[in-house]
């Protein structure tokens, strides 16, 4: 039985299931919720299956079409991929449950096909070992993201979606030109083969610049973050959660993957540039978040700053440290959970009061204790306080920075933590006090409250699971990973 489980190609299922589910939900709009929830649950089970398989047999390899690289496309999964797939499954499940009650019938019919196809694209992205295939998955993620961001059809949502569309298309094009240069330098688009063949030549440098710029734009790295606050803050709550928790992480994952596999040995200076921009993002994003008067914009700017932490890995990982990038993987997972929970909370508060003005939260804690509790727990993880996933990730990163004597990074991370505490306590403060203007509150469905809490609790629980999760991350030892699987 165990053999059967670990022999099954969970990876392939992870791609085909959501795509098929997406098509079905488009064909049968009457059954979208059922199809959607069933698909997301099946995906979550498949991730468990894949995890079991990876733990017993090591990295997963599949040559699509039986051709194998360089002619064909390879699927590949190691600890890092599995981690990202887990993010997909956990956040996806939480947001899907939330979405059951959030959308009305018409919106649900538009939401589910887009979301399931997005999920398929994300899974395909995390399983790909081929830079052109990654481009195609990026297109899926981008276009689905635009469709989702504009779901509510409000003026602000359309404006945000347009910004996002422009940014994501430009990012894809830069990435594609980089892919073209890499292909013509090495005659392959397979990542392990590229790692073997590439040398430090001007076209590779140009490709590095283009790919970094394109992916940084998609990941909203400061100062290329201009599109994110509007796009993420003006979308529907579940969509904001998906965009902030999953979509921006996808492009970051590609950057991290290519960095670890292809670019790290060939570059100096770029890693410091990315690190510096990451530091700037932490400070700038936090300061902006602190100034916002609207909850969703505050959360969106918080995403800008939290993405900055991820970019600190580049100067640190230059020394080849496992703990640096595993810290980042941990941060990704905990931020995804906490941030999606926060956006869902914002959705609840908007549902409840009809607005998301922070100053007018008006004792929300009395009427929506679960929701405010979820926000507080998610906030603990975002601030990086123990015991939470965010704490473990930031602690690992901080340790690495201390070991390498990078005091600049240490100081910025400390300041970022304090600022995060400031903007989160500001919200909590208003949630406890009476607003000058009172208003008619509306009830919030229990499912929406509990799913937000569930995600927040998961972000905290991560803090207790450090050792098993590190074990998972160790599968395939990403540092010399893909080549080793051959």
């Amino acid at each position, binding site marked *: 039985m165990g053999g059967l489980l670990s022999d099954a190609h969970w990876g392939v299922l992870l791609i085909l299931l959501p795509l098929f589910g997406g098509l079905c939900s488009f064909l049968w709009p009457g059954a979208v919720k059922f199809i959607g929830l069933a698909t997301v649950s099946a995906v979550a089970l498949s991730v468990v299956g894949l995890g079991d398989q990876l733990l017993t047999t090591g990295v997963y390899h599949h040559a699509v079409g039986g051709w194998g690289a360089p002619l064909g496309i390879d699927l590949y999964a190691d600890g890092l991929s599995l981690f990202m797939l887990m993010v997909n499954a956990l956040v996806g499940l939480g947001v899907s449950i939330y979405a059951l009650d959030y959308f009305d019938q018409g919106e649900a019919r538009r939401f589910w096909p887009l979301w399931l196809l997005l999920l398929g694209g994300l899974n395909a992205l995390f399983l790909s070992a081929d830079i*052109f295939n990654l481009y*195609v998955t990026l*297109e899926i993620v981008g*276009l689905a993201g*635009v*469709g989702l961001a*504009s779901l509510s*059809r*409000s*003026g*602000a949502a*359309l*404006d945000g*979606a*347009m*910004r996002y*569309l*422009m940014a994501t*298309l*430009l990012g894809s*094009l830069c990435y*594609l*030109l980089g892919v*073209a*240069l890499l*292909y*013509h330098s090495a005659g392959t688009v397979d990542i392990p083969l590229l790692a073997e063949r590439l040398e430090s030549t001007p076209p590779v440098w140009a490709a590095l610049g283009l790919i970094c710029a394109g992916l940084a734009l998609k990941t909203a790295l400061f100062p290329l973050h201009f599109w994110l606050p509007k796009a993420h803050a003006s979308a529907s709550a579940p969509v904001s959660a998906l965009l902030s928790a999953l979509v921006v992480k996808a492009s970051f994952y590609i950057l991290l993957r290519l960095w670890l596999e292809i670019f790290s040995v060939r570059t100096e200076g770029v890693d410091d540039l990315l690190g510096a921009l990451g530091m700037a993002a932490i400070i700038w994003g936090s300061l902006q978040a602190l100034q916002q008067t*609207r909850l969703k*914009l505050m959360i969106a700017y918080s995403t800008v700053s939290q993405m900055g932490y991820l970019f600190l890995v580049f100067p640190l990982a230059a020394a080849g440290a496992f703990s640096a990038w595993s810290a980042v993987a941990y941060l990704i997972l905990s931020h995804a959970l906490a941030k999606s929970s926060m956006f869902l909370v914002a959705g609840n508060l908007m549902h409840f009061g009809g607005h998301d003005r922070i100053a007018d939260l008006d004792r929300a804690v009395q009427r929506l204790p679960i929701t405010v509790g979820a926000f507080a727990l998610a906030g603990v993880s975002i601030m990086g306080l123990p015991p939470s996933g965010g704490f473990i990730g930031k602690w690992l990163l901080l340790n690495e920075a201390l070991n390498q004597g990078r005091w600049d990074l240490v100081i910025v991370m400390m300041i970022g933590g304090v600022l995060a505490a400031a903007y989160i306590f500001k919200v909590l403060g208003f949630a406890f006090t009476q607003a000058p203007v009172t208003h008619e509150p509306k009830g919030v469905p229990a499912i929406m409250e509990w799913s937000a809490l569930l995600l927040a609790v998961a972000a905290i629980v991560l803090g207790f699971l450090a050792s098993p999760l590190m074990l998972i991350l160790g599968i395939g030892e990403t540092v010399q990973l893909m080549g080793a699987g051959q």
Partner: protein
Amino acid sequence: MNIPMIYALLGITLFSVGLYGLIVREHLLRKILALNIMGSGIFLVLVALGKRSVGDLPDPVPHAMVITGIVVAVSATALALTLMLKLVEVSGSAVLHDAPKERS
């Protein structure tokens, strides 16, 4: 300097001209045209550099990539145009304004 290389250089120039237009011009329709020109430039680079093989056959792999790329580009263009029209319908302007509107 051979003929394919000239076309490849044309490709990066088109990419850059498109990028310039994307940044400098404000009207969304113009930005959409700019993205299309950038895409054409990239396709040119992909295909032109694939003509460096010694045999009689140009590299078919970039050709396949570009064919799907062209079809995807037109569908993304259609989406962008529709989004632009909806935006104009709601906001009355085909330009993205940087000044935040929600300062009320």
